[in-house]
């Protein structure tokens, strides 16, 4: 079986290399049959990767411990579902997943590109094949999932119990869908630059792919935060860990692109900038995979000691060289047709938003690689922790939040002061009222109250957008308000999908502000029957219990929670001790309401039955999770194909609204 898997990967590598050469040759000679041959080779490579993946899945499912990978990530006691998710629980398997997802994307991309821009097919095939070749090279040399051991153990080591969680089962594949999805825009842009004759540099074709990758990255980050909150038992959801930053950086760059591409569509400006963003996003996705899979950021020395690190950095350098090299070669052709008309316009708001997003991405990058850079420059590794990120990223995020409210109110090309006055009066008043109200109600720190006021301002601008659209529809067609709202969103999916995504981000921002500014915690050691108060809650400790389940001994702190005199019911805070592996996991007692979360960790216990509890009240956590759901709704609406999609891609006429026939809000 293992031989079949190994053979399939080797054959896939050969086919991918062939497709790389054939694609480049087809691009040079412009012969369609060579390009078709490259496409067929990629199809066959995808099938072979599918075979390899099936072999690995069967081996994981049947617990075939002759494979080292299976022995390392599966154990007899592990539930079958998690045996299968062990596919992406380790490095080799997740690289195989990368290659497999890339092949799927490649085939889909070739189909759509063949329809929209046939001239780009050879280039897309070549770039995708090149990236595939790299991952297949890793899979057949330094990171083979099919390595066997001559003396297979009778039981495997299994995954770390922390990973045995539904959120962790879906978090990596979602994130990978995003990372890998950034390859396709890169391939399209490289193909357009190489073949020439595409004044948009392929950016407009790449947009939809990048949007999808952006959405997957968002969801991946969201699932990861949820996992961290529910499973890791430290009360937080984001720790500026290098692995988290690895996913945040491409997300920031992709978010910048989603905004700036609109300017290219409408005004044929910023083409160069968008090309750079696509290349950067791809580079960061490779960098992120590398970080997640090697964790080498503590020291520069481990860079050179890990064979994987050298491979990844070489590929990254090569990819950036190709991308930026092609961009430099066509630089003059990508000149903007128009220039900024006025400093006060929607375009300049978008440009500023892009600068802020890139500044945030740069700050995160700098903080993440700081130990390595400082060691290379000064000989000593210096770490910058969460204080650095909070200090740098929070002001940038607030600036972005402000622009989220201001941008949609500004007219394209040139905003008049009179117009601005009308636009900003109501939302501005809402913001000021909210701020004054919160400060008057004694909300401190004042910074948090002001941040909420900013959120209120942005929410008012979004509400106003919807209200205007609904009013216009009702006036023209006499529809009911609900019907008009639904029709409005569905007929202008990109615009209102974007607004809904903004609403989701706003909920997320409120959740982050609330939970980081107003969280309280305390530690209490209680005997049975005693209680501890935190916030409005009173937690009574009702004694310890024990239970063995799935190879783990669980110590259970039985709790009863009261709010005032109201009984909120029984809760359990557990600590699970895995006897074989010295691992321990925490199951927190969690009660969520839109107002706040009560989060209780069983920190310790004594022989005489007392327990030490860590009690936290995290306000507005639910808003973060709700924000993710709203963001999903908005992204799905924005990604649904428009009914009149075709003319948009072909020749974007300057100044013509791609939205609806009517244009409220100074469009």
């Amino acid at each position, binding site marked *: 079986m293992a031989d079949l898997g190994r053979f399939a990967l080797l054959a896939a590598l050969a086919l991918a290399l062939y497709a790389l050469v054939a694609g480049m040759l087809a691009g040079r000679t412009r012969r369609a049959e060579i390009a078709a041959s490259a496409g067929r080779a990629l199809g066959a490579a995808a099938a072979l990767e599918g075979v390899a993946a099936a072999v690995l899945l069967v081996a994981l499912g049947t617990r075939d411990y002759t494979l080292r990978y299976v022995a390392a990530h599966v154990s007899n006691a592990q539930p079958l579902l998690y045996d299968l998710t062990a596919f992406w629980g380790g*490095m080799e398997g997740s690289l195989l997943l990368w290659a497999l997802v890339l092949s799927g994307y490649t085939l889909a991309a070739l189909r759509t590109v063949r329809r929209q821009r046939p001239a780009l097919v050879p280039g897309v095939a070549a770039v995708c094949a090149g990236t595939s070749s790299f991952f297949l090279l890793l899979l057949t040399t330094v990171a083979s999932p099919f390595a066997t051991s001559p003396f297979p153990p009778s039981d495997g080591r299994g995954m770390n119990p*922390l990973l045995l969680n539904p959120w962790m089962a879906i978090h990596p594949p979602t994130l990978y869908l995003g990372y890998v999805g950034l390859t396709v825009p890169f391939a399209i842009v490289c193909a357009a630059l190489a073949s020439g004759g595409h004044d948009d540099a392929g950016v407009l074709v790449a947009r939809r792919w990048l949007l999808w990758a952006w959405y997957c990255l968002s969801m991946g980050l969201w699932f990861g935060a949820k996992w961290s909150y529910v499973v890791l038992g430290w009360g937080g959801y984001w720790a500026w860990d290098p692995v988290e930053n690895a996913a945040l950086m491409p997300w920031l760059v992709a978010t910048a692109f989603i905004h700036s591409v609109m300017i290219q569509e409408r005004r044929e400006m910023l083409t160069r900038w968008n090309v750079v963003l696509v290349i950067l996003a791809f580079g960061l996705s490779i960098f992120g995979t590398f970080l997640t899979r090697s964790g080498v950021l503590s020291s520069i020395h*481990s860079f050179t*000691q890990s064979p994987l690190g050298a491979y990844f950095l070489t590929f990254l350098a090569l990819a950036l060289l190709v991308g930026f090299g092609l961009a430099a070669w066509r630089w003059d052709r990508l000149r903007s047709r128009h220039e900024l008309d006025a400093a006060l316009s929607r375009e300049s708001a978008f440009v500023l938003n892009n600068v802020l997003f890139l500044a945030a991405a740069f700050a995160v990058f700098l903080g993440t690689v700081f130990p390595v850079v400082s060691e290379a420059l000064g000989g000593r*590794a210096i770490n910058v922790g969460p*204080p*650095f*990120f909070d200090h740098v990223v929070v002001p940038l995020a607030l600036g972005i939040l402000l622009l989220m409210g201001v941008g949609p109110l500004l007219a394209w090309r040139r905003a008049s002061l009179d117009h601005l006055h009308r636009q900003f009066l109501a939302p501005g008043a809402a913001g000021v009222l909210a701020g004054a109200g919160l400060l008057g109600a004694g909300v401190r720190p004042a910074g948090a109250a002001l941040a909420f006021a900013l959120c209120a301002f942005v929410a008012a601008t979004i509400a106003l957008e919807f209200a205007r659209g609904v009013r216009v529809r009702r006036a023209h067609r006499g529809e009911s308000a609900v019907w008009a709202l639904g029709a409005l969103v569905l007929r202008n999916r990109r615009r209102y999908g974007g607004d809904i995504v903004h609403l989701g981000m706003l909920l997320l921002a409120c959740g982050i502000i609330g939970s980081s500014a107003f969280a309280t915690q305390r530690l209490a050691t209680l005997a049975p029957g005693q209680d501890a108060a935190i916030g409005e809650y009173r937690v009574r400790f009702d004694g310890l219990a024990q239970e063995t389940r799935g190879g783990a001994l669980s110590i259970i702190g039985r709790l009863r929670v009261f709010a005032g005199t109201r009984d909120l019911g029984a809760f359990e805070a557990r600590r699970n001790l895995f006897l074989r592996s010295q691992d*321990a996991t925490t199951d927190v007692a969690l009660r969520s309401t839109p107002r706040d979360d009560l989060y209780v*960790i069983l920190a310790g216990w004594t022989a005489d039955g007392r327990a030490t509890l860590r009690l936290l009240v995290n306000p507005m956590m639910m808003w973060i999770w709700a924000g993710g759901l709203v963001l999903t709704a908005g992204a799905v609406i924005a990604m649904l194909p428009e009914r009149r999609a075709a003319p948009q891609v072909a020749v974007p006429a300057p100044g013509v609204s791609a939205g609806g026939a009517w244009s409220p809000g100074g469009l």
Partner: protein
Amino acid sequence: MSAVHPGRVGQRRHTLVFVCGAAAIVVALAYLVYGGIQQGATYWVTVGELEQRAGALPARVRLGGTVAPGSVRWDASHRHLRFAVTDGVHTLPVAYAGVVPDIFSEGRQVVVEGTLGRDGTFDATTLLAKCPTKYTPADPASSR
């Protein structure tokens, strides 16, 4: 190429405004980054380095190493944790009170942040443990 629009002078003025704005943002970012580094920077050290050059290092450092087997002690109420961090040669006692990561256990790699006390105990305010499956250590013997 902007023959479509009259008034190139005005446009140049806008470009100037834009360039000035970009410069202001870059300066602001540099200022933010500088402040952030001032706030958040801590040195990475190994146990051996900390013992030899304690005086030459800033008070607050990040210490990396392995939890010495058999050294983990909790107090009765499980509030305070004591253990020893070793780099294979030198060993240093650590005291910590706070959230202990689930993956913390003897023999695992940890990073503690804090200060070295007069009595030779490292007072840690942060305790991070490396997740063995998420981070595949490149070379466990020499990582720090």
